[in-house]
């Protein structure tokens, strides 16, 4: 009798894991999605949500392959990706769930505390290779960035580098946490991460988009009042065929309670 109960419990647990809603994609959105999922599941006993990272590109590819219900992304879906969805007869729905300020971080021992967009472009295209060229110590610049599957990689390239190609010397890291760790451990390092990932082990620099007239530090306040220039929306993408199934979770994230979680986690809410 005991064996029968155990067998039934096993079958039920396997079935439940198969029916879990899957969210996959952006490393930037990952901490937020995990927290939202955790609270959602507390309010909705019996509903299971699993959240995994991998990058915005990976999430959208999983959405196209239908191995995830929601693809989370820190960049808009590309037309080529929409065409792939279209080729299988589907349509994707885009929902902005929060915003995020993209911060440029350096090692805390680095005396450089502000950079213009032009300087950032020069650094990440290796036209500027030493910190002394931007007012710092005589120290080579070590570049850290994300991999090409990352929405943050695309966003930084488009908005900060004005679509110039990254230097081949940039070290491509698979996850945001790896950038934070590397920059905290390397004196000459520079990287870019979402605001929510900033820790005391790294220093966020102020950025100027008006050729040095004013420099603004990244924060929720400066992102909300639009003085900080590098702010981007964060997306959930899902197919119209899944919209009914994912609606409760999406509605929860957009609700006042869900948006409070956005602020609490260091992101910018949509209010």
């Amino acid at each position, binding site marked *: 009798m005991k064996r029968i109960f155990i067998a039934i419990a096993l079958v039920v647990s396997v079935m439940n894991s198969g029916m879990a809603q899957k969210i996959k994609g952006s490393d930037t959105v990952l901490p937020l999605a995990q927290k939202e999922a955790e609270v959602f599941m507390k309010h909705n006993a019996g509903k299971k949500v699993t959240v995994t990272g991998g990058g915005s590109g990976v999430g959208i590819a999983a959405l196209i392959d239908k191995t995830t219900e929601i693809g989370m992304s820190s960049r808009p*879906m590309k037309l080529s990706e*929409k065409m792939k969805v279209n*080729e*299988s*007869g589907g349509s994707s729905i885009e929902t902005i769930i929060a915003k995020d300020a993209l911060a440029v971080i350096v090692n805390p021992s680095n005396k450089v505390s502000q950079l213009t967009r032009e300087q950032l472009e020069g650094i990440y295209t290796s036209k500027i290779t030493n910190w002394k060229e931007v007012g710092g110590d005589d120290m080579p610049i070590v570049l850290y960035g994300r991999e090409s599957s990352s929405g943050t990689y695309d966003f930084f390239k488009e908005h900060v580098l004005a679509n110039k*190609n990254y230097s081949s010397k940039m070290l491509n890291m698979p996850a945001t946490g790896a950038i934070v760790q590397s920059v905290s451990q390397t004196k000459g390092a520079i990287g870019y991460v979402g605001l929510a990932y900033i820790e005391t082990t790294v220093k966020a620099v102020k950025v100027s988009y008006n050729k040095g007239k004013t420099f603004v530090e990244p924060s929720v306040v400066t992102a909300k009042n639009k003085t900080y220039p590098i702010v981007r929306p964060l997306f959930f993408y899902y197919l119209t065929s899944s919209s009914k199934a994912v609606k409760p979770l999406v509605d929860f994230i957009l609700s006042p309670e869900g948006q409070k979680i956005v602020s609490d986690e260091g992101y910018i809410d949509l209010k």
Partner: protein
Amino acid sequence: MKKFTLLQFAFLVLLCTNLHAQDAPSVEDRLAKTEGEISILKKVKISGYLQAQYQHSDTVGAGVVAGGSFAANSNQRFMLRRGRIKATYDGGLTQMVFEMDIIEPNPVLGTANAINIRDFYAKVTMPFYKDLSLTTGMQYRPFGFEQQYSSSMNEAPELTRLVNNVFPNERDLGAMITLKAPKEMELLHCITLKAGLFNGQGIAKNTSGNLDFISQLYFERTTKNEKISYRIGGSYYNGLVLNGDKSIYSMGTNSKGQKAFIADTADGSSNIYKSVTRQYYGVDGQITIDNPAGLTVLRAEYVAGTQPGTAGSSRSLDVDPKTNAVGATYMRDFSAYYLTFAHKIAKTPFQVVVRYDVYTPNTKVTGNEIISANGFGKGDIAYKTLGLGLNYFMTSNVKFIAYYDMVTNDADVLIKGAGYAQKLNVFTLRMQYKF
């Protein structure tokens, strides 16, 4: 006594369980092994599709392009139009593709129930320059757009008359290089050059003893706002075809001053197995627009050139004239174009399709000039086809196509009696399953 025996037994069970637990691999070991096995499996991709359809023609025994001619006493049919299985092995810088085609027996076309190879090629990307690759084997010809577009993704059920006549079987056997500028040269990186040498006989063996040169150059880009994607390109084909007869016919004027095919028999038997020119020029353009009403696709292609055919057909020759009596070669200057409009309606699973396809196999003759006495026939008749369709994507695997082809040809009253002026309108209702 009983109690002691039970205790001993329990101890033995516990001991055996503990020993077994020590032998079992750790979760990390099992995970690493599984990940390794999955990474191998992920390199192999199997896909395929099946197209089953119902067709109705306005004429019994209609000689149509869409799915081949109808049987002599029939104007409706069910048929298995295509069944394809494709296997791809992706080794990163190398790739191998194998695709086979299962076709229905068609006594009108003379095909038996057969399995044909469609794609069978290997592609190697140069490790020293990742924008340069070499593809060898049975593959798409690098010409134009439509014939490289998978039948499973095509909005219309069939390819245009251009491809069906000029590029039968859609594939050829050869070697091709693909080249792009480095990614750092942003605008130039949008340009792709493909060039190769091919047998020229489609999926048949090389019979001409010559290799055909095929190339294309196209520019492809997406706007920054990811709303519009466009491509524009040009293609060139230069090949030779064997003539199997003592005569080669070319366009000229007969003794009555009428346009006619004039036989070149001056060389006599030296015309037999003489190579004749097969040359095409093409331009193509595609644009995809993501708009509030849905996803809109516009495509256009124009091809012109010199096509060696036979008396009754402008179709590219793919049989050996040394072993098959195909008759004399008829040299025709041809032109063809098509315009396709396809629109996926908002977020619905419906897509409307309109295509206008014009095929002029002989640009030097038209209408009442097509007189059989002057050597003209079916191979010289121009066709204009307006197709209207509605696609329904029931699931990501299943698509239904309802499509009506309205065909007009320039057959004049002089050849109506020969049965050329058939009403060739065809309605096709197809279910496609793709995985």
